[in-house]
């Protein structure tokens, strides 16, 4: 029977398409904005998470903070980190390994084309394995760097794609870094992090010789003994650094952060933005719902005669109520579906347009299935709620008055 009522309701909506679509505008703008903006926010969150994802949850990173406009992290700050800190940090309770990280940007040439890339350092000895497992990098082809490798480098996965130099780089190829020839000994597996995938690994001593003329380091990676104590270790290091760098609490010119803490703060910011979007969109949907109520009232009035006819030929009040209730729910459902499609189109379309125009890989959309399901349910519920009073009014009409209507 429900199928028959559905047919009747669909016919009735189809017979006044313009009004149906106009009515649904409020709903689908609301739903589309929820889907699109949350989808983009979620995509951004995932993209950023994947940038951090290569670091384990037992790793802290220390950077000097302050002015940091360009270049690799930790470059161009007022008071950079220095190499002598390493041994002191090692003594902080709970610290397992401390590794100095050198990051430099450099012109890289291959196939007569030049790009600017980040070169990172690989330490010698046991620290090398520690860093490899910390960052979780593996060679896809060729091999990893080893101690004593001189003018040799390993490249991130993105170099295997044509886009950097117009030609794939292969193991054994020679590239110029800062004008000096290096041999590519290995290509790394894809990490999904655009920073790591487009960077070049070089032994620490070679990097220092090529770039450094002072004792500064860009970052310090600290592996803690016990993941559960990461916050205590973090406090310990902060206390040490405050003392060493002679700054008061609250005025730190450095940051000690775990990948998790960065993600957490990012999450809370995105959450606030998403809540704001949801509230705005909710207003739109509620206004849309009022639009549906209005349209349903008009429909009840217009179809008073039809209601009378149906009652005359045996429709009970509950049937009339059901017909209008379904119709109103359908307005919500169709509005929701169109809204979701528009939202998906907008989210994925604008993300890919953004990537194409700005060349920024991080602009991605990700619309969780749950969001789609919830949006659809919400729009149907709004549609149904909006229809309750008009449907009730319709069901209470007396057959004789209705039949006489507009006679």
């Amino acid at each position: 029977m429900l199928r028959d009522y559905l047919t009747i309701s669909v016919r009735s909506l189809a017979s006044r398409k313009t009004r149906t679509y106009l009515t649904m505008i409020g709903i689908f703008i609301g739903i589309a904005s929820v889907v699109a903006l949350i989808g983009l926010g979620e995509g951004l969150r995932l993209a950023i998470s994947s940038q951090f994802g290569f670091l384990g949850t037992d790793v802290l990173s220390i950077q000097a903070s302050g002015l940091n406009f360009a270049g690799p992290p930790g470059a161009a700050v007022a008071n950079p980190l220095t190499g002598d800190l390493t041994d002191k940090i090692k003594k902080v309770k709970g610290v397992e390994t401390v590794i100095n990280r050198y990051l430099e940007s450099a012109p890289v040439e291959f196939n007569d084309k030049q790009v600017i890339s980040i070169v990172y350092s690989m330490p010698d000895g046991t620290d090398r394995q520690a860093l490899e497992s910390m960052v979780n990098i593996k060679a896809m082809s060729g091999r990893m760097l080893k101690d004593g490798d001189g003018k040799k480098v390993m490249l991130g996965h993105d170099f295997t794609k044509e886009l950097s130099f117009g030609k794939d780089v292969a193991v054994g190829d020679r590239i110029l870094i800062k004008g000096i020839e290096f041999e590519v000994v290995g290509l790394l597996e894809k990490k999904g992090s655009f920073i790591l995938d487009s960077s070049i690994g070089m032994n620490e001593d070679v990097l220092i010789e090529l770039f450094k003329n002072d004792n500064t380091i860009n970052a310090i990676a600290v592996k803690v003994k016990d993941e559960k104590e990461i916050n205590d270790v973090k406090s310990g290091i902060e206390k040490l650094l405050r003392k060493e760098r002679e700054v008061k609490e609250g005025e730190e010119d450095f940051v000690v952060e775990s990948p998790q803490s960065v993600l957490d703060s990012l999450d809370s910011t995105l959450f606030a933005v998403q809540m704001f979007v949801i509230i705005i969109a909710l207003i739109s949907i509620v206004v849309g719902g009022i639009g549906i109520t209005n349209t349903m009232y008009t429909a009840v009035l217009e179809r008073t005669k039809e209601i009378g006819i149906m009652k005359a030929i045996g429709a009970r009040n509950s049937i009339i109520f059901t017909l209008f209730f379904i119709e109103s729910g359908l307005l919500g459902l169709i509005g929701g579906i169109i809204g979701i499609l528009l939202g998906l189109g907008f989210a994925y379309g604008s993300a890919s347009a953004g990537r194409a125009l700005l060349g920024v890989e991080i602009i991605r959309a990700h619309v969780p299935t749950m969001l789609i399901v919830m949006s659809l349910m919400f729009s149907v519920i709004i549609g149904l709620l909006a229809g309750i009073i008009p449907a009730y009014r319709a069901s209470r009409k007396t057959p004789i008055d209705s039949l006489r209507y507009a006679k």
Partner: protein
Amino acid sequence: MGEKYILELIDVWKIYRMGKIDINALRGVNLKVKLGEFLAVMGPSGSGKSTLMNMIGCLDVPSKGSIYLDGHDISKLYESDLAQLRGRKIGFVFQQFNLIPTLTAIENVMLPMIFQNIKREERVRKAEKLLDIVKLGDRRYHRPTELSGGQQQRVAIARSLCNDPEILLADEPTGNLDSTTGQEFMQFLRKLHTEEGKTIIMVTHDREIAKNADRTEFLKDGKIAKNI
């Protein structure tokens, strides 16, 4: 009571209150209709014809008096029960055809059966048969706007018959038809009466049309009169 009669109205009054004035639309109507009878009700406008039709059609209940339909007193029923009763026992044919414009001919015919929870296959079978009877088998999937007045009225007849009602109630059924189509329609109604034995109650103001009935009752000032 009502053993021989399919419909019996006993001292039926309908009083409408218009502001402070009471208007007596029906003033003690007594009427008996036998099973299988073809009755015409005639009367000038304002005589209470429509009100009477509404009472017989279970669309409204009397202010006073009783109406027995198939032996059951319907004068004190509530709307939902009346709706159920109408759907099963009464077939309506209106002056203005009153088809649902968004539905096709066959869907219009099936509508009363939907309201009676009849299974789809059964509905389709019956609706097709009825449309064949009214010679509209080839117009099943046409909407009312794509049909002529006569064709629409035949769809309405098919619709009114789909639940095998006890009484066919026709309210000025030829009022919106030209005389030829009107005559054809009346022949069809007559045939339905003579061949199928349907009880038909028809309201009309046209004496020629009323002649098709077995008996004519006149209504004047809310009462059954000898003549008008």
